[in-house]
């Protein structure tokens, strides 16, 4: 695959930014500063980053990431400070303290926050692409679904609808082997998520979700095809969730050996080896990526922590257009 040195380094940057940002979030959760839950994408960074990297915001492309797709948000231009602020329920965060984790939206930059019921956003993204087509735009949409999410009715209705309408939508199926505690063997009697959309006439690819270059290549093919009127594609990325469902879950139901095996396939270590072997980057380059990330995260966390909490009465308003709208938060 033809990907410039700069772009390969950028993929590394986004993957490491995702991981370091989540490390910080983990600490904030342990300190009790983040409430509710903390959902990490540890081990899955390549899937989120590599897929969204194929999108082009200049063409109006739009992505709806799941909770484990922080990397896709960052690729689309969400700033770490916005992620910190939302998790820390600040009044100036994108959801203004009204919704949790990375449920954040900015249509201008091309990301639409998910909601917790699964499959819903596949149906919503169909409408986003219908609108795009009616408005004569050439935008492509990308939406994520997990192995568990592919069991929902909304997913099946929406996948079929996308196929029937030939919508420019790329569905990234992240098969990370577990839906909370339930293994894929208890989700379905087939091996591949991709087999689920065959019946809808939707083309699919199955890729190594821990190989960011493979993910990017597959996503770019699907995005190009969608933009050219070729309709939707389902990409199954085989990966593994290296932590429990959320911070409270110690993953006791997964065999230690399985986790050890997947550790050897760490997506960041994998790309770093590729970059070293091809002499695109040396230790010094890699260290400078890390330094840059630390500087960004230090500054952004400091900013987010300095932001005000919402006043209690800010719970009111903004339910209907006719009410006073809370001030929109800035980036």
């Amino acid at each position, binding site marked *: 695959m033809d990907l410039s040195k700069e772009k390969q380094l950028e993929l590394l940057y986004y993957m490491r930014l995702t991981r370091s940002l989540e490390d910080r979030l983990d600490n904030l959760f342990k300190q009790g500063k983040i409430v509710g839950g903390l959902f990490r994408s540890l081990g899955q960074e390549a899937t989120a980053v590599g897929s969204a990297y194929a999108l082009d915001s200049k063409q109006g492309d739009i992505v709806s990431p799941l909770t484990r797709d922080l990397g896709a948000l960052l690729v689309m231009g969400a700033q770490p400070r916005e992620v910190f602020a939302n998790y820390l329920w600040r009044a100036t965060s*994108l*959801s203004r303290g*009204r*919704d949790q984790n990375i*449920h*954040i*939206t900015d*249509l201008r930059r091309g990301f*639409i*926050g998910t*909601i*917790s*019921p699964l*499959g*819903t956003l*596949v*149906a*919503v*993204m*169909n*409408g*986003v*692409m*219908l*609108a*795009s*087509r*009616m*408005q004569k735009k050439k935008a492509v949409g990308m939406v994520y679904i997990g192995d568990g999410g592919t069991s929902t*009715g*909304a997913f099946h*209705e*929406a996948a*079929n*609808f996308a196929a*029937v*309408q030939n919508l420019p939508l790329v569905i990234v199926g992240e098969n990370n082997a577990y839906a909370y505690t339930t293994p894929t063997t208890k989700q379905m009697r087939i091996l591949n998520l991709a087999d689920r959309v065959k019946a809808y006439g939707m083309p699919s690819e199955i890729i190594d979700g821990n190989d960011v270059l493979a993910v990017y290549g597959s996503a770019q093919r699907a995005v190009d095809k969608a933009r050219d009127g070729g309709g939707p594609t389902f990409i199954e990325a085989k990966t593994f969730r290296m932590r429990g469902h959320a911070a409270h879950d110690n993953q006791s139901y997964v065999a230690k050996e399985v986790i050890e095996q997947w550790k050897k396939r760490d997506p960041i270590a994998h790309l770093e080896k590729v970059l070293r072997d091809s002499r695109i980057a040396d230790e010094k380059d890699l260290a400078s990526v890390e330094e840059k990330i630390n500087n960004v995260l230090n500054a952004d966390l400091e900013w987010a922590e300095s932001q005000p909490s919402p006043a209690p009465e800010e719970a009111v308003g*903004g*339910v*209907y*257009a*006719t009410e006073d*709208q*809370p001030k*929109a938060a800035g980036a």
Partner: protein
Amino acid sequence: MSSITLLEAIRQGLWEEMERDNRVFLLGEDIGIYGGAFKVTEGFLGKFGDQRVIDTPISESAIVGAACGAAMMGMRPVAEMQFIDFISCCFDILTNYAATSRYRQGIGIPMVVRGPCGGGVHGGPFHSQNVESFFLNTPGLKMVEPSNPYDAKGLIKAAIRDDDPVLFFEHKFLYRNPAIKQEVPSDDYIVPIGKAAIRREGKDLSIITYGAMVYTALDAAEKLKLEGIDAEILDLRTLLPFDREAVLETVKKTSKVIILHEATRTGGMAGELTAVINESAFEYLDGPVMRVTSIDTPVPYAPPLEEFFMPQVDDVLKAARQLAAY
């Protein structure tokens, strides 16, 4: 001006909005080639084309999900439920997505979900429901139910132009009912969402109702007149957010209230209205707020069962006589 049915009024409203605003489009089951199960959208496909009149799979979640997404991006979708009973198939999209979007992410969902509701046509448990109670407890949604052609046309236009998601209930018993045909202006007008209308002035008691039950109330009022009871009838027209001022005004005027609806009793509109009246007009009341509703069962199919299930004029008379004793 010509005299038209409630169905024709909705058809005209949709047609005019599609002509006026090319962001408006329709999607639903059998709405294109066939023109819809009740023919509300007959002729639309030929006029507006298959990009704006979209026949869909039988997938209510996909239909309303697509409407949400398109609405977010500046379109004005109108999704048809073939029967409003099937709206429960897309409960998640409506309650978790459409209703919360503006609050969570500051993005409105200007979408209409419309369809035929109500009983009295022997449609059985799955073609006769009134679904407003499911959604009354969902802030972020609006609900509208017209009782006559003038309102139907004005309200469908208002719903399409509204910046929030509107559930639009069309009582199928009224669709082609010749008795309620009305002359409707041919020039553009709307009936504002959130405003009730007095259908009959009276001084002795108030019947607060909506949809097809407006006519049950009117029939009851004629009989009550013979008994010397002068009933006022308030047609809510919008169920969420309902016209609180109009409700309290009629209560303060007559001091006796019957709330009449075709939806089942427990957890219904009547319960909510009763609570509001108790909180805000208790000292004006001369008797208990009475509920006349369908009974708490699924909608039965057989004509005698369905008649027993639904509120009848006699049920209203009984409640009115009870109230008159206070």
